[in-house]
């Protein structure tokens, strides 16, 4: 893991001090709310329906036990005993008082954490593959490059007042777990024919009001030029992006208005003129940052564990959890463990202070002190010895964290919706709760296979409904909550935007609708086909019929 040196520590401490001053100026009335709002947003502080909300960055989703314990402490001391993991690998606190936020940030700074650029029209917290450094299928660990981007983008003087927010995601696997095709910039590390690794640069993807899958403007960017190339893209966007209409201000609108080919020319022309040697890091610094991400000292272990196999054979519940929640690790004898934050009927992404501490303890004892947050609002223990899996499972179960539903129908992404959010038109969480209760049976869920349900409470699409196999969008109709269903979206390597299948449904009917769609899928599927595959094979019409005929 990256560790701060004196420079990073000074930066974060000075940021906390600066924000303390900004809060003091607001409290004294020296700053109006209009003046203060962009300042607090640049530090992740929103005003929600009931209270302020602070979004804390977990850069590329990687954090330590010590940091997790501090997050638990903050939840207890400054909030109401819980936090909420988001789709951008961040954690949000829903109840901090403005007057306490400076102290909260000081507490976080002590463990190398902050809320820098978790909101505002700037380059946001960079996201990545939650299995980075552990996955069997990656070409290399993408996180050193994430850290390089984090440092370059932090307080970038030219790009802190962009037309709109700017999100960068990095993956190093053909199995895209970072949704790189629906980001402002997506970066995919891969090997070229000569065996060198470099970046595919994808620009102009995004969700929101106008969803787009991004365009590849470079198949292979040599790694050492990453920062100068990013600087060129950002400069073109800063100068040319629309500022007359906030709904048309994201880079995806510019890319699609110019056309991907012309946009590429604009970037290449700018890149040819930027000071590449001044911006791109020298080899020594790249190596220095890579050193922090050296693989932990894995033991030499047999690929299979006999204790594990004995437990698997005798404990059906454990066996299911192994099948559903664990993933192949690159080191023999290890596994990647997913921790579901989606208990049946629970609030997606919420976790209590004591659960946070339970996860911290397990990570410290069994996972080289590492924890990951996923963009699907779950957690990961990346390096667990197979011999330890049963013990880890038992401890997670005791903490209420062993729901075996990763990637299944009840592993739902939902935005906070109208229960918390000022922008929302409708609630999201209760719909997620009722769908997961309706389809609670885990045998059934496993038989259904991968099925991604994503729910947003308004058109801003924080719940990623456009890329749900089943997406649900809340809309307000004359003061009543209605829900529109979209089908066929995907945020993975086969990225696609879902299609709206018909009129909006009431909150009761939308839960029935999901069940009908699932039933129809079960009837139609051929061997091995996922819901998404059947939808792509049959098209929208038969699904529409199934959804609306007897309604």
């Amino acid at each position, binding site marked *: 893991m990256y560790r701060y040196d004196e420079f990073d520590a000074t930066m974060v401490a000075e940021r906390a001090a600066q924000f303390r001053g900004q809060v003091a100026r607001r*409290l004294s009335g020296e700053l109006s709310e209009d003046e203060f709002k962009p300042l607090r947003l640049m530090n992740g502080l929103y*005003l929600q329906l009931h209270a302020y909300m602070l979004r804390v960055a977990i850069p590329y989703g990687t954090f330590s036990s010590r940091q997790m314990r501090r997050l638990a402490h903050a939840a207890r001391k400054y909030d109401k005993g819980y936090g909420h993991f988001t789709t951008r690998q961040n954690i949000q606190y829903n109840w901090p008082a403005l007057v306490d936020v400076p102290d909260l940030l000081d507490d976080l700074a002590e463990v190398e954490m902050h809320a820098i650029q978790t909101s505002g029209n700037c380059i946001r917290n960079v996201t990545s593959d939650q299995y980075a450094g552990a996955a069997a299928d990656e070409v290399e660990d993408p996180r050193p490059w994430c850290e390089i981007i984090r440092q370059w983008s932090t307080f970038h003087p030219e790009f802190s007042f962009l037309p709109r927010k700017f999100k960068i995601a990095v993956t190093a696997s053909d199995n895209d777990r970072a949704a790189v095709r629906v980001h402002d910039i997506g970066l995919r590390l891969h090997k070229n024919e000569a065996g060198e690794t470099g970046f595919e640069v994808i620009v102009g993807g995004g969700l929101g009001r106008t969803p787009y899958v991004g365009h590849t403007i470079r198949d292979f960017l040599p790694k050492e030029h990453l920062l100068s190339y990013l600087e060129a893209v950002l400069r073109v966007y800063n100068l040319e992006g629309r500022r007359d209409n906030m709904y048309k201000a994201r880079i995806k609108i510019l890319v699609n208005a110019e056309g991907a080919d012309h946009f590429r020319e604009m970037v290449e022309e700018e890149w040819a003129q930027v000071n590449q040697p001044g911006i791109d890091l020298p080899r020594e610094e790249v190596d220095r940052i890579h050193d922090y991400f050296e693989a932990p000292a894995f033991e030499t272990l047999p690929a299979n564990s006999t204790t594990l196999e004995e437990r698997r054979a005798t404990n059906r519940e454990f066996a299911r959890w192994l099948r559903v929640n664990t993933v192949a690790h690159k080191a023999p004898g290890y596994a990647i463990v997913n921790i579901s934050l989606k208990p049946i009927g629970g609030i997606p992404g919420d976790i209590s202070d004591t659960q946070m501490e339970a996860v911290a303890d397990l990570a410290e004892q069994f996972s080289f002190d590492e924890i990951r947050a996923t963009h699907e609002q779950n957690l990961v223990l990346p390096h667990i010895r197979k011999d330890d899996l049963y013990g880890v499972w038992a401890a997670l179960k005791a903490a209420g964290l062993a729901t075996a539903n990763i990637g299944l129908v009840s592993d739902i992404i939902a935005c906070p919706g*109208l229960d918390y959010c000022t922008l929302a038109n409708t*609630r999201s969480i209760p719909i997620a709760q009722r769908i997961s209760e309706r389809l609670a049976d885990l045998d059934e869920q496993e038989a259904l296979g991968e099925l991604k349900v994503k729910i947003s409470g308004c058109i801003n699409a924080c719940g990623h409904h456009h890329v749900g196999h089943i997406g649900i969008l809340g809309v307000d109709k004359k*003061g009543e909550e209605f829900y529109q269903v979209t089908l066929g979206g995907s945020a993975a390597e086969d990225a696609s935007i879902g299609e709206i299948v018909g009129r909006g449904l009431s909150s009761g009917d939308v839960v029935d609708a999901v069940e009908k769609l699932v039933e129809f899928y079960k009837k139609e599927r051929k061997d091995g086909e996922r819901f998404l595959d059947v939808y792509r094979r049959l098209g929208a019409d038969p699904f529409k019929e199934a959804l609306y005929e007897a309604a």
Partner: protein
Amino acid sequence: MKAITANALQDGAVVYLGDDDQWTPHLSSAARFEDGDAKDVLAAACSRIEEITEAYLISVDDSGAIIGRETIRETIRKGGPTVRLDLGLQAESCG
């Protein structure tokens, strides 16, 4: 009729402008204004920037109950998240 709501500056809590011109967490204690007068009162309330932020008008009936398009939103603001009945003002009235 209208009432004036805002979030308290210091902790962000939902407040309403009361009859005594003080901010109260209870909608039942909120002052009610005729639609025609409400704008002026709101303008005065908005200038109290050291006390509150984001002040605006909500529609209420003669008894002070929330009405209109924003009923769901304002009901949730008043009570707390519907998915955490143990939090917000709603928790106090149950307990």
